[in-house]
């Protein structure tokens, strides 16, 4: 993100720290105000981290220690818990991670590529029905996908694609929210002259899109790839309906299974470890990319 920011003007301002007037003298009221701010902010930050702290602690302790009482000090059973979680036959968590990676990865790629393509169509070309399409996509963005779940479920049953990844991956080609982000980004950062210039150079439309337009969109594609990936990675509702064989289940479904009665006889250290596996890697990736992601959220929100 530290690279060229000229394509993301809003990001730049969002990342800038607000600068006060240097001539202003601090007074006591301001000092107290600041202290209050820090106390409240620290409180909420601790609230956000506290539960995950417990998670990390308990994933390092063994069942008896966990049931014996709460502790702030980590135990020594991390490796044991990890081994017993990944070798569990009823909840094949490694398989779940692989399934989730396949689905979320493919969804992210399909959604950014085709949403960019769709946005490009509306941004660059002038064709009949373009305004209608734009408004139409705007409308479908507000329709929860859950509402078509019943139809999707029966359709997949009829077409024998239930319990496959197709109904979880292919629909990401039509992702209205990604489309909107893309079209906005194009408005601010995709000069039509470049396309004209490419045409003069004899580049075909499809080639222009792939070789000239996509690289310009790279920052936006990256931000949306992350969001699409995370959304699909965390999705529970539709996969929960569509997938039912153990070897096809994704991570959220496996986590939800832990709540079921048959699994409550589990070792608690193992239960915490499953949750750890589902949460912590995403947290680590997030902390590495947080500046970038937060800037993406801010850009998504601001429109001008």
């Amino acid at each position, binding site marked *: 993100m530290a690279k060229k920011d000229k394509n993301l003007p809003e990001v730049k301002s969002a990342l800038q720290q607000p600068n006060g007037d240097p001539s202003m003298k601090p007074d006591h009221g301001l000092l107290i105000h600041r202290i209050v701010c820090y106390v409240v902010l620290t409180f909420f930050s601790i609230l956000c981290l506290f539960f995950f702290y417990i998670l990390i602690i308990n994933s390092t302790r063994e069942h008896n220690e966990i*049931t014996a009482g709460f502790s702030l000090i980590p135990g020594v059973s991390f490796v044991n818990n990890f081994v017993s979680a990944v070798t569990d036959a009823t909840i094949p968590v490694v398989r779940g991670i692989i399934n989730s990676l396949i689905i979320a990865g493919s969804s992210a790629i399909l959604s950014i590529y085709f949403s960019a393509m769709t946005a490009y169509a509306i941004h660059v070309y002038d064709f009949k029905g373009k305004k209608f399409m734009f408004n139409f996509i705007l409308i479908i963005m507000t*329709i929860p996908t859950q509402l078509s779940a*019943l139809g*999707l479920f029966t359709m997949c049953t009829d077409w024998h694609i239930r319990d496959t990844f197709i109904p979880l991956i*292919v629909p990401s080609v*039509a992702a209205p929210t990604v489309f*909107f982000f893309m079209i906005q980004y194009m408005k601010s950062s995709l000069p039509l002259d470049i396309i004209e210039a490419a045409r003069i150079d004899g580049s075909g439309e499809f080639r222009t899109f792939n070789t000239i337009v996509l690289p310009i969109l790279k920052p936006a594609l990256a931000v949306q790839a992350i969001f699409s990936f995370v959304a699909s990675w965390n999705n529970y509702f539709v996969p929960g309906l569509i997938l039912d064989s153990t070897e096809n289940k994704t991570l959220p479904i496996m986590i939800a299974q832990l709540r079921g009665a048959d699994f409550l006889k589990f070792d608690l250290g193992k239960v915490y470890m499953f949750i750890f596996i589902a949460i912590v890697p995403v947290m680590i990736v997030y902390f590495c990319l947080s500046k970038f992601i937060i800037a993406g959220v801010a850009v998504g*929100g601001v429109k001008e």
Partner: protein
Amino acid sequence: MAQQVAVEKAPTPKKKGGGIGKYKKWGYIFMIPFTVVFLVFQAWPLIQTFYYSVFEYFRSGLDYIGPNFVGLDNFASIFDFSKVNIFGLTYNTLVMWAIGFIPQIIISLLFAYWFTNVRLRLKCLGLFKTIIYMPNLIMASAFAMLIFSIFSDIGPVNDIIKIFNNGEPFRFLDYTYSTMGLVGLMNFMMWFGNTTILLMAAMMGINESVIEAAEIDGANSGQIFWKITLPLIRPILVYVLITSLIGGLQMYDVPQILTNGTGGPNFTTRTLIMYLSSNISGNPNYGLAGAISVVIFIICAALSLIVYYGFAADKTSREANKAAKAALKAEKRRGV
């Protein structure tokens, strides 16, 4: 969820560079993947869903009953107060949404105001933002399972409660208020960072000179916040409200996993989508599931209309912003 992306008014139909006739077809070609996939995987299933809503169609054991056309019976059933009805489900959903949303909007406004306040000059903002946004990316189902483990009868929270309560745990899931409270807490934690960043971005979009001018006029920080900042970010507030509401109506993962699908106690935490889901896969009753989908669709459509209304307001406020700026500038000049 939809919160990340801004909504945008339709582009002007003005001719652009690509308007030359021979390129027109490419517009259609590039629209094909989206359109086809949308029609096959969203529109057609939606139509089918609606179609089922007027049929009696469920599975009993190894047999399917129906589909038999029954008109509006399924709708009558979900509006029947003696049974599980749409009002109760909507009420549960909205109450849990509000328990999360009200503190969320208050805290987010406060934080956004602090983060953008030029006089406070707070340090470590990046760190705070990073931490408070983090829960938004956490898998809701895993988060719910974590909260369940932590608040269970033998979990760490009850380890502490037992010390003060003669060894008796507090059973969070036995009471409506505590179950709803936990759901609200999770929704609050998952979304307040996101909302803070959105509001912050909006507040930073306010022209500083407007605020400076007000300060020169002797307005205190409270007045500036209520009279200038808040009205100017109204469009984004409406946007946050609507997207959060639409997201709230889809509430599923958190209460589903926290209560193991029972929506207990006494069905008070059963949401619309939990009911929908149990009628699709648990004990399939396609007729009811269809009817409930139609009703949620209507609610969302109504909210979408408000989104459009929100746009109109957006436009007005942008103009108001401009007018205010001009007026203040004039005033400033006069003051000098």
